[in-house]
């Protein structure tokens, strides 16, 4: 049986498969940054991307990669637009994306907090709400730094297997 994809579905599929430059085990679809892919009446493919963090330097790389892959697939006119609203949240990382993160030793985020007015939550002890170790599964883990090698990750370590690991922090 031959499945004929419409241009729009084919374009969407291509854009969805582009890997994230910093977390290459994830596709842009897994990460939840690809907001829409449409084909205009004149054949222009319009892909909407949203940044994870305001300063994420991977954004221009994502844009270039989406554009290049669509052109390589035969779409002559491609426009990749930035969409800022609503702001990206880690809740948009797909279940498949969370599974891949765990598989690669990166703890996936929990539910994103809703920014709320009120006092600053001051918790100074190293042990926080349990992020299970993505390697051994132990709950006995602690944060070593809330900021890591990329904007979206924090540094943690497992007190059971002693391995350090990265954690995609909720935002």
């Amino acid at each position: 049986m031959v499945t004929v994809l419409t241009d729009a579905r084919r374009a969407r599929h291509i854009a969805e498969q582009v890997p994230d430059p910093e977390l290459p085990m994830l596709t842009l679809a897994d990460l939840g940054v690809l907001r829409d892919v449409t084909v205009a009446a004149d054949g222009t493919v319009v892909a909407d991307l949203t940044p994870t963090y305001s300063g994420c330097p991977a954004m221009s790389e994502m844009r270039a990669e989406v554009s290049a892959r669509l052109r390589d697939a035969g779409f002559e006119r491609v426009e990749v637009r930035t969409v800022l609203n609503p702001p990206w949240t880690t809740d948009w990382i797909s279940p498949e994306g969370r599974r891949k993160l765990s598989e690669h030793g990166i703890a996936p985020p929990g539910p994103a907090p809703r920014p709320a007015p009120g006092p600053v939550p001051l918790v100074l002890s190293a042990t926080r709400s349990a992020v299970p170790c993505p390697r051994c599964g132990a709950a006995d883990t602690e944060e070593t730094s809330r900021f890591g090698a990329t904007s979206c990750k924090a540094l943690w370590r497992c007190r059971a297997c002693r391995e350090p690991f990265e954690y995609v922090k909720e935002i």
Partner: protein
Amino acid sequence: MSDDHVYMSLAEGHEDNARWAYGTGFEDPLHGVSTAVPDGVDRAELAELCLALADDALVSAQRLGEWTTRAPELEEEVALANIGLDLLGQARLLYARCGQVDGTGRGEDAYAYFRDADDFRNVTLAELPNGDFAFSMARLLVLASWRLAHFELLAGSADPVLAAIAAKGVKELTYHRQYAAEWVVRLGDGTEESHRRMQAGLDQVVPCLAELSAAHDAGEAVLAVLAQVTEAAGLSLADVPAAAAGAGRRGEHTEHLAPLLAELQSVARAHPEATW
């Protein structure tokens, strides 16, 4: 694409020259975002606000970056650099919006690299040298709390682009404020020496609240945070000065801004047409 590895693809030729965000000649960070300004929004006021908020962020980012290789621990360098990167991203978006609405059509590089100190509108607190780590943490707590409170209001701005930039920034600034608050408590409630230096850092920052309160009416939120955090830290909060129009928003700066800009702008000015 012949090579699926994303890092290998960096070496391939593309029509689009924009690659990683190093150097000058960045892409427009607002590419594809509608440039329209809604009826009833004063373009000059909007541009002025975007510029001031962008300058606060750019100058703060530069100071935070200076901690790299100098912070007490590697983790703190990573954290401060990350906070600076968030602010740099906010500055880029705000400069781009400013260029759309102020009638000049300038891009972000023109604002960041080709204006002199007199043209900057950041509050002077942002430009003061980093000094002691404790002072830097007190300043970060105040600036993050102030910017967060202001961005929460701006998320409802009549300008949809500014509203979107602010709504995104709120999430980032919440992390920045948290980070600074924890250090203020850790140092204030730490050893005799750390307490002494944290108190000194706080005392240096408090007089600057006059300029902040005058610039944006977010002073109450900042005071609430300061009261909470200093109490938890066992620090005493000096009398907060009344709001007084600050010099920074008028382009009058301390002697510390020009050297900061000289470092920030030197490469771009030496090679004004360069892209890499």
